[in-house]
């Protein structure tokens, strides 16, 4: 049994190239003691040995096999090392850390609106999977809006199709519609007023660039969603993952411990604006 700062070895048993510079890794613990349980929206610290460590949201588990999936965008030394790690290699993993979306505590009935921008869909992916099941069981509808820069950048296309086929309302909108694209074109906020959800009592989960979340939250409030029922996922310079190093501080929050999921109303509304100044 190791402490929370010591990574456990995990083997890369699957590697899938998503769109653009995003790769999804399927990881399996090399030791028996490692826990595979997590809450939707939590994150792990992944180590590329000899390079460094990075906080990554959990993008889901592959079926019932107990594998953990992480989608990694190649934006620096550590993420590049993780994106190029071959199947069979070993990486380090600490976690899961932080809170989650808390969808297991949702009462039956209210609609849930999920809005994601780009790779912001990763921490929402497994939650949406459960929300689609919730809808199928008649316990509340789910509306998914996924934004991408262009049609070839739409992440998790198979999942989006599956959720749509399952009967959920799924809208994919792109910033620029290249030839052949006949879906919506515009930022995610433009499609929100057209969603047929019932705002009274509705919950909303959003993840993406902070500016996007700010505008999404405002648009949802304008649609009638209560600010306290809008949950945003913040990302900071998370290093220890357990709230002792302070690198992830945002106002009164230590995001790795108190987040990454926080309510917009009364918390993120002020923090998102103040941080931008």
């Amino acid at each position: 049994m190791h402490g929370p700062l010591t990574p456990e070895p995990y083997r890369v048993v699957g590697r899938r190239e998503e769109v653009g510079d995003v790769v999804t890794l399927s990881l399996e613990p090399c030791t028996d003691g490692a826990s595979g349980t997590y809450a939707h929206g939590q994150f792990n610290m992944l180590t590329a040995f000899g390079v460094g460590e990075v906080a990554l949201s959990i993008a889901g588990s592959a079926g019932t096999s107990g594998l953990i999936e992480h989608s990694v965008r190649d934006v620096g030394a550590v993420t590049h090392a993780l994106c190029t790690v071959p199947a069979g290699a070993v990486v380090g993993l600490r976690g899961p850390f932080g809170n989650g979306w808390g969808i297991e505590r949702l009462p039956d009935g209210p609609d849930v609106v999920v809005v994601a921008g780009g790779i912001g869909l990763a921490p929402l992916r497994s939650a949406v999977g459960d929300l689609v099941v919730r809808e199928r069981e008649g316990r509340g509808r789910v509306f998914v809006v996924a934004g991408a820069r262009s049609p070839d950048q739409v992440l998790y296309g198979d999942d989006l199709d599956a959720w749509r086929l399952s009967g959920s309302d799924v809208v994919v909108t792109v910033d620029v519609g290249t030839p052949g694209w006949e879906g919506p074109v515009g930022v995610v906020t433009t499609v929100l007023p057209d969603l047929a959800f019932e705002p009274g009592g509705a919950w909303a989960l959003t993840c993406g660039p902070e500016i996007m979340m700010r505008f999404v939250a405002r648009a949802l409030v304008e649609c009638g969603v209560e600010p306290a029922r809008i949950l945003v996922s913040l990302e900071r310079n998370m290093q220890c993952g357990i709230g002792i190093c302070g690198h992830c501080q945002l106002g009164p929050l230590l995001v790795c411990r108190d987040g990454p999921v926080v309510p917009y109303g009364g918390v993120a509304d002020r923090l998102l604006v103040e941080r931008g100044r």
Partner: protein
Amino acid sequence: MSDTVERVLAAHRFLDGMPEGTVELIAGCAQLDSFEPGQRLLAEGEPAGTLFLVHHGRVGIEVHQSEGIITIETVGPGQIVGLSWASPPFRWQFDARALEPVSVVAVDVDRLRTELRRRPDIGVVVLERLASLLVDRLQETRLRVLDLHALGDDRPR
């Protein structure tokens, strides 16, 4: 029950909360129209003389370039197409094409201008609504200029 211009306008988001008499005033300058998928509502460079209030279907605002047609925005029910009539040179700046069967209320803007000058109480409200819509589109454009999807996850790590 078949749609009439008045009925469609009365239910259209653009006219939400407008003063009494607005629907009748605009209806007097308008007619119902429909477009098949692929059919153009308006073409870049041509004189801009119509305001389209979309009732059913989606319209793509498009620009042609060497790589093909790029859709820069889609507009659906409750939204409007065609604003170039509001400022010189009064020519369409882009193409607009029906992406699916589309029905609209097509407003003759020359007649609309005349009517709005005759009823400035309604004219002010209509212009305020148009200004609000232009602000929304400006904000959306600003967000796109920011290239949001390149933000947030581009910190080297």
